């Protein structure tokens, strides 16, 4: 095992203004919502005030991952359209009062969101919370644009699979110069990596070349915690919970050892290079 | 006689639509049917990658719609299946507004003249990409995993698809029988009960899938394995045959006895 040092990330916060971070990926199902929920809890556990925004209009899931689905009465569109005040729409978390959720609308469409109003809402929330974390939907269309508009930091979540890497690569391109995205590699299976049946973190980052924020191994426990609506970062021990707490610490600027990565003997690097070099742009 | 036009959709991303489309299409081709797979995920194409055909892309669906080439020119024949399996790739650098629903439906119609089965690999979500993908279909396969978010999204999609009067069939993907046994994962019965959809397949979680995707080789091309059998069964059910579902939970008599005691 050797360590990959992440590049230092500038802290963009100005006094009394919280940080707005979008969690995105392009590919669906890689763990954006799970990451948003757990990162939110990990930051809240440090005493920060955290607001989570579910930007997946029409297919909301952040509420159910947090176990708050029965408490959601209003959603982002209600606020953007002036039907309710922001305060009324925020759902306080069951386990940690530092954490609130602004849910997505379940029965509306993404194109009903006014991009400029969304941006203004995130700005407004930054004045109240240390962290505003936006859970981006899959894809790169309007939902993505609306999720990204209010943020000035981005975290991309990638699983060690060719499709996911390709999609993240596209997303990083679309995020443009405004962001210096950091990478979380999710659902790593070290045993498969050793057998050469899964890309390693190095393989992934050889293509993406992003500062590595964290590595999370695949754990059946995640399914169980989602079943119960009790995010795993509520725990203090265990590999996955610790990984999220370490990520939170890095985000907060603590001096935390870099995420450890597994080296692998047989590299997919060559093949990956061929895929990305040879594919039609 | 026009082929069947089946959209493979889910709502939730990452549950296995593309893998299912690729493997089911490949299985049907192996069984002698002409199959065309259409990647409807414009901007984030992956069907080509999963089949290992990414280097052979010359034209994509947007170029067909814009009249820059014929459909036949854009279709990539997968040589591993003789003349029987082709894919129509998505465009990578455009977005989903590049095609209207009518245009998409027209492409699917043309493809159905050339094949017995046309599968449309739908993007995640329920926006324009989804609307395009279902525009050309006359049947739907919903893919879900036995997890809370996936099922919720599948429910939404089933609603949207039945509004269009498409018959719906369900594939439960990535089942982990050992987790079902310990009560840590919803069972297939649970999923079917919640979604009230007709089940057409149950695919167990298998680490080989990742490896085969990396290599661009559909798992059904490999040697005899569990998944190959499963996709065969799904193909046969699609063809109209009544095929019993594999019991992944089969632990023999002693296991069943223990199960009875636990259930009380």
């Amino acid at each position, binding site marked *: 095992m050797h360590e990959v040092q992440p590049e230092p990330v500038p802290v963009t916060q100005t006094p009394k203004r919280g940080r707005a971070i979008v969690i995105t990926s392009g590919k669906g199902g890689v763990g954006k919502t799970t990451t948003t929920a757990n990162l939110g809890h990990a930051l809240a556990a440090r005493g920060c005030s955290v607001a989570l925004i579910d930007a997946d209009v029409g297919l909301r899931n952040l509420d*159910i991952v947090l*176990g708050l*689905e*029965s*408490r959601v*009465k209003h959603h982002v569109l209600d606020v953007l359209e002036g039907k309710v005040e922001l305060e009324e729409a925020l759902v306080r978390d069951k386990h940690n009062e530092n954490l609130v959720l602004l849910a997505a609308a*379940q*029965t509306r469409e993404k194109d009903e969101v006014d991009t400029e109003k969304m941006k203004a809402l995130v700005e407004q929330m930054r004045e109240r919370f240390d962290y505003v974390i936006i859970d981006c939907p899959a894809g790169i269309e309007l939902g993505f644009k609306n999720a990204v508009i209010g943020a000035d930091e981005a975290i991309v979540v990638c699983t060690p699979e060719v499709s996911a890497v390709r999609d993240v690569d596209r997303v990083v391109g679309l995020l443009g110069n405004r962001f210096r995205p950091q990478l979380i590699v999710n659902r790593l299976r070290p045993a498969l990596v050793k057998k050469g049946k899964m890309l390693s973190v190095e393989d992934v980052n050889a293509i993406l070349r992003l500062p590595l924020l964290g590595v999370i191994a695949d754990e059946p426990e995640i*399914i*169980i*915690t*989602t*079943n*119960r*609506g009790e995010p795993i970062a509520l725990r203090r021990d265990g590999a996955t919970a610790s990984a999220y707490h370490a990520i939170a610490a890095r985000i907060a600027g603590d001096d935390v050892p870099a995420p450890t990565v597994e080296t692998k003997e047989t590299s997919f690097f060559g093949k990956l290079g061929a895929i990305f070099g040879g594919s039609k742009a | 006689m026009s082929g069947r036009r089946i959209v493979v959709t889910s709502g939730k991303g990452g549950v296995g639509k593309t893998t299912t489309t690729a493997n089911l299409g490949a299985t049907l081709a192996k069984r002698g049917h002409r199959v065309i797979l259409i990647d409807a995920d414009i901007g984030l194409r992956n069907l080509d990658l999963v089949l290992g055909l990414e280097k052979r892309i010359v034209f994509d669906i947007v170029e067909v719609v814009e009249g820059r080439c014929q459909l036949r020119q854009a279709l990539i024949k997968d040589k591993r299946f003789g003349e029987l399996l082709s894919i129509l790739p998505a465009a990578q650098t455009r977005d989903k507004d590049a095609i209207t629903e009518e245009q998409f439906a027209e492409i699917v119609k043309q493809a159905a003249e050339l094949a017995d089965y046309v599968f449309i690999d739908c993007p995640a979500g329920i926006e324009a990409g989804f609307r395009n993908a279902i525009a050309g279909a006359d049947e739907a396969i919903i893919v879900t995993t036995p997890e*809370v978010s996936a*099922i*919720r999204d599948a*429910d*939404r999609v089933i*609603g949207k698809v039945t509004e269009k009067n498409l018959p719906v069939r369900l594939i439960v993907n990535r089942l982990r029988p050992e987790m*079902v046994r*310990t*009560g*840590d*994962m*919803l*069972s297939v019965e*649970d999923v079917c009960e*919640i979604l009230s959809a007709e089940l057409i397949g149950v695919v167990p979680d298998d680490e080989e899938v990742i490896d085969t995707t990396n290599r661009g080789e559909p798992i059904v091309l490999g040697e005899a394995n569990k998944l190959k059998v499963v996709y065969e069964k799904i193909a046969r059910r699609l063809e109209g045959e009544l095929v019993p579902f594999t019991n992944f939970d089969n632990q023999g008599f002693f296991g069943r006895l223990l199960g009875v005691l*636990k259930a*009380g």
Partner: protein
Amino acid sequence: MIDWVRKFFAPTTSSQTAKERLRLVLMTDHLSLAPEMIEQMKRDFIDVIAKYVEVDRDKIEINFEQQDKALAMLANVPILAVNRNSGGGDGGSKKEEPKATEVANALPRRKRRKKSTVAPSTASPAPAG
């Protein structure tokens, strides 16, 4: 007895929890997807009540809320007068002053959101935010 024993020895699995949560959340999702059905249901409901008492239709509020493990419909129906010749119920025991009637499934009371009902007095505990 057997139920209690079973519950004691077999705590709820996460899949059972998940199934229950999904059942409730999908009910809520389906309700929000059928606004016309809900409007019709509200109209029918109000029509039935109005057969027995005179109601202030403009001030009626009907909502769905999740309470514990069930979904409940909560209705706040200001009653203006009781029709002396109304066909049903025990007319003699009804008071004539306007009051709000709360209709809910038989579940423990929960705090409700503050509503701007203009009913002069309420018989039930005051709704709270």
